[in-house]
C-alpha cells in the first residue's frame, strides 16, 4: 500500500473514526472521572491528615498556634446556638488569595493585631472538583480556630450536561433557575453538600444566593425571571434538605443587596433565617455610575427595614476604595455609626480583596491596611468592640 493510498483510505474512514473516537473518549473520560470521584473524598481525607500532621508538628515546635489566640471564645465559636445570638460583636475577614494563598489574611491580621473568629470565602455550585463541599477549607479554618462563613452561589450553568441529562440545556437553565431549585431539580447537588456539611458538625455560616434582588449582578437575580416567591421557595427547599440531612450546625444568613428597593419581599420567614446579611462597599469615584458614599449614606435607608426582621445583622462585605474621598474618615465614621446608630449590627466581615476585577477592567483595592492610619484605627476599634 502506498502512502497516498493510505491517506485516501484514512480520509474516507475519517467519519467513522471520528464517531468511534468521540464515543471512546467520552466513555474513557467519564470512566476516569467516575473513578476519580470515587477516590476523591479519600484523597481529600489523605491531604487533610497530612496537613494535620504538619500542623501539629509545627504547633509543637513553635509552642503556639492561631487557635490558641481564639481560645477564650472557644465556647461560643463551637456552638451554633450561641452563634445564632452571640453575646458580642463577631468579626471576620475574606481575603482575595483564598483558597490557595492565605498570606493576605496573615498580613491583615498582623497589621490589625487581631485574629478573626470568622473566615469568609465564596464557592460556586457545579460539577467540578473545586465546586463540591469545601472540606479542606472548612477543616483548615477549624484547625486555625475560626468558624467558616461560606457564600454559596447557585451558578446552575456549571453543571456538566453530559452527566446531568435531566437538566435543561445550559443556555436555558439560568431562566427561572430559582424556581427549579425550589422544585428540587438541583437536589442531586444540594443533598450531598448538606450531608457533608452535617458531617462537619462544627458551625458553618451559610450565605446562600446573596444579592438575589440585584438585577445587574448574578444569574439568580430578577432579570432572569426569578420572582421573590421563587427565591423564597428555593430558600425553603434548600433549608428543608439541610434539616433533613441533620445539618443543624448550619447558620443561615439571608443577604440581599440593600441599595436595590423591595428587598424585604425576598425574606423567606423568621424560622428559615438566623442572620440578616448585607454588603457595604463604597466604590468612590472609580466608575461613572459611582460616587463617594459614606458608610452611613449606604446603610441609612435600609436599616429600619432590616431591623424589623429582628435578627442579628451581619455586614458580610465591608470596605471602601481610596479613590474619591477620605479613606481614614470613612472608617472613622463607620465605627462611630456602628456604635451609635446601628445597634443591630452584630457581625462585620472585612472584604480584604486587593485585586478585585469583577466590576472593572483594572484591579480595585478594598483592603483596609492599604492605609497606615486606617489600620491603626481599625486595630483599636477591633480591640475595643470585641471586649464589649
Amino acid at each position, binding site marked *: 500500500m502506498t502512502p497516498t493510498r493510505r491517506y485516501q483510505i484514512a480520509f474516507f474512514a475519517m467519519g467513522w473514526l471520528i464517531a468511534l473516537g468521540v464515543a471512546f473518549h467520552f466513555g474513557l473520560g467519564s470512566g476516569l472521572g467516575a473513578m*476519580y470521584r470515587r477516590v476523591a473524598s479519600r484523597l481529600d481525607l489523605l491531604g487533610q491528615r497530612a496537613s494535620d500532621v*504538619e500542623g501539629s508538628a509545627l504547633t509543637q515546635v513553635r509552642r503556639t498556634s492561631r487557635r490558641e489566640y481564639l481560645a477564650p471564645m472557644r465556647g461560643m465559636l463551637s456552638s451554633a446556638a450561641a452563634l445564632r445570638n452571640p453575646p458580642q460583636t463577631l468579626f471576620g475577614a475574606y481575603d482575595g488569595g483564598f483558597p490557595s494563598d492565605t498570606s493576605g489574611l496573615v498580613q491583615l491580621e498582623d497589621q490589625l493585631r487581631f485574629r478573626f473568629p470568622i473566615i469568609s470565602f465564596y464557592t460556586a455550585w457545579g460539577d467540578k472538583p473545586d465546586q463540591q463541599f469545601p472540606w479542606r477549607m472548612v477543616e483548615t479554618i477549624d484547625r486555625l480556630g475560626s468558624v467558616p462563613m461560606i457564600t454559596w452561589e447557585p451558578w446552575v450553568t456549571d453543571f456538566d450536561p453530559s452527566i446531568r441529562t435531566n437538566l435543561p440545556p445550559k443556555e436555558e437553565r439560568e431562566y427561572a433557575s430559582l424556581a427549579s431549585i425550589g422544585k428540587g431539580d438541583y437536589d442531586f447537588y444540594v443533598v450531598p453538600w448538606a450531608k457533608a456539611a452535617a458531617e462537619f458538625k462544627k458551625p458553618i455560616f451559610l450565605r446562600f444566593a446573596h444579592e438575589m434582588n440585584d438585577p445587574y449582578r448574578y444569574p439568580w437575580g430578577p432579570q432572569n425571571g426569578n420572582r421573590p416567591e421563587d427565591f423564597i421557595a428555593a430558600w425553603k427547599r434548600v433549608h428543608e434538605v439541610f434539616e433533613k440531612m441533620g445539618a443543624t450546625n448550619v447558620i443561615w444568613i439571608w443577604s440581599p443587596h440593600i441599595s436595590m428597593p423591595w428587598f424585604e419581599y425576598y425574606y423567606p420567614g423568621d424560622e428559615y433565617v438566623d442572620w440578616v446579611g448585607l454588603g457595604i462597599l463604597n466604590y468612590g469615584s472609580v466608575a461613572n455610575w459611582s460616587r463617594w458614599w459614606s458608610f452611613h449614606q449606604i446603610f441609612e435607608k435600609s436599616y429600619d427595614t432590616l431591623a424589623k426582621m429582628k435578627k442579628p445583622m451581619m455586614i458580610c462585605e465591608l470596605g471602601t476604595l481610596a479613590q474619591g474621598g477620605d479613606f481614614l474618615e470613612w472608617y472613622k465614621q463607620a465605627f462611630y455609626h456602628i456604635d451609635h446608630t446601628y445597634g443591630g449590627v452584630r457581625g462585620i466581615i472585612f472584604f480584604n480583596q486587593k485585586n478585585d476585577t469583577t466590576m472593572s477592567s483594572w484591579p480595585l483595592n478594598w483592603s483596609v491596611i492599604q492605609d497606615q492610619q486606617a489600620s491603626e484605627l481599625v486595630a483599636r476599634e477591633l480591640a475595643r468592640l470585641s471586649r464589649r
Partner: protein
Amino acid sequence: MHVWERVLVAVLIFLGVQSVAIFGVWWFHLENVSNPFLFALLSIATWYGIFRMFVGWYNFFHLEQPDHVDAPPDLSVAIFTTSSPGEPYEMFVRTLAAARDIRYPHTTYLLDDTRDPRFAELAREMGAVHLELVGYPGAKAGKINEALKRTTEEFILVLDPDHIPFPQFLDRVLGYFQPDPQIGFVQVAQAYYNPRQSFVARAAAEQTYTFYGPIMQGMHGTGTVVAIGANCTFRRSALESIGGHGIGLAEDMVTSIRLHAAGWNSIYVPEVVSRGLVPSDLDSFLKQQLKWSRGVHDVLFQEYPRAFRRLTFHQKISYFMIGSYYLVGLTSLIYFTIPLLYLWTGAQPAAIILAEYVEHAIPVGLLGLLIYRLSQRWLCDPARERGWHWRGTLLKIGAWNIYLKGLLLAVRGISVPYIPTAKERRTAATFFAMARMPLAIIAVSAVTILATIFKRLYLVEESQVRMTTEATFAMIGFVLINTVLMSGRLWAAWQDRYRKDDEEML
C-alpha cells in the same frame, strides 16, 4: 503488515491524536495560570514530549518493508573500512576476516592512517587492499573521499570497523539498486553483540531498538531513510554527485540529507546482517552522545535550512523530527527546575486540579503506551528487544546535560574535537568526575527538601502551611522523582569505577 494490523494501528493512532487534541484544548484553556513565564516553559516541555510521541506515531503509521530483490551477478562492489590510531588491532583481525568471508564477490579496502606496519600486513593476509591515507580532514569521511578517487567500484559498503558483517550481507542489499537507478543508498539495521556486557551497553542498545525497528521502517515508507555511519551501501555516482561523503560530527546525516536533496532515494532493510559494539562504559557513551548531539544540531541549524526547498514533503518533516531529538536536554532542565523553584520561591506555572489532569492526561499516556508496545512487533529482533526499555530511558535522561551542551555548542558555533567512539573500555575517568551532574542534582534536591521542612516547621505562617500541604508534598514528590531518574547515570558511573579497579588488579 496485514490489513487488520494497518487498520488497528490507524485507529489507535487516530484515537491518540484525538486524545492529544482534547488534552490540548484543556491545557491551553487552563484558568489558574499563576506564572505565565513558568507556564510557557512547562508548555514547551510538555508539548515537546507529545511531539516526540507524534514522531513515533507518524513513522509507525507509514511502516513499510521492502520486498527482497535478489542481487544480480557481476556488480562491482567495494567494502571500505577505516582504521585510526588507538583502535585495537584485534578488532581488525575479526572485522577483516568477516569482510573476506562475505559471499558476494567484492574488494575490501582498509583505509588506514595508523602508520602501524602491522595493519598493512594484516590487510595483505586477509586479502584486503591497504590504502595508506594519512592527514585527510574529518576523520572517516576524509579518508572515504580520498579512497573514492583511488577506486572504481560502482557500489561501496562503508563498514564500521567494530562491526562484524555476516556472509550474506551484500546479497541482502545489492538487489535493491538494480530496478531503480535513483536509489542512492541502502541502509541495514544495526545490532550489537555486547549489550550484556554492562548496564551502559544494555541501555545504549535499548535506545536504538525502536529506531532500527518501527521508526526506520516508517521512514522507509515515507522515503526518508537516513544513512547511519555504519553499514550503509552507497552508489558511487550518488556520492560523487554531492561531492563525496559529507564531513562533520554527524557526517552520515549530512550525507543523507544532501543525497535526498539531490533527488536520490533510499531503502531500509530491517535485517540484522552484522553485529557491532555498543559503548559499554559511561565515558565513551557520553562522548558519543555529545558528538551526536552537537552534530545533529548542526544539521538542524545549517544543512536542513539549506536543503529544505529541495526535500520532499515527508523529508522536510522527517529531518526536522530527527534534528530535534536532542532538544530533550533543554526540556529535562525545565522539568528539574520547576519543582525546585516552587519549593524555594512559591512560584508555580499553574494551579492544576488533579482530577482534571487525570481525566485529560491519562488517555494520552495510555494510548501512547499501547501504541508503543504494539509497535514492538516490528522490532528487528522482537524476542530479544521487546520490553519497556527503562535502562535506555534512564540513561537518556541521565545524559540530559550532555544533550544540552551539544545544543549550546551548536548555537554558539563552538566545535567539539572529533573523538572516535571508543572501541575499548576507557578507564581514566573516576566515579566523581563521571557523576558530578547526578550528585549535584541529588545534593540540591536534598538541601531543598530539608530547607522546605525547616521553613514549614519554623517560618511559614501556620495557615499557609495547612493550606499548601498537598501542593508542597506533590512538588517534593517531583523532586524525588527527578532524583530517582538520576540513578541510571549514577549506577553507570559507579560500575565504571569498579571496573577500573578490577582491571588494575588484573
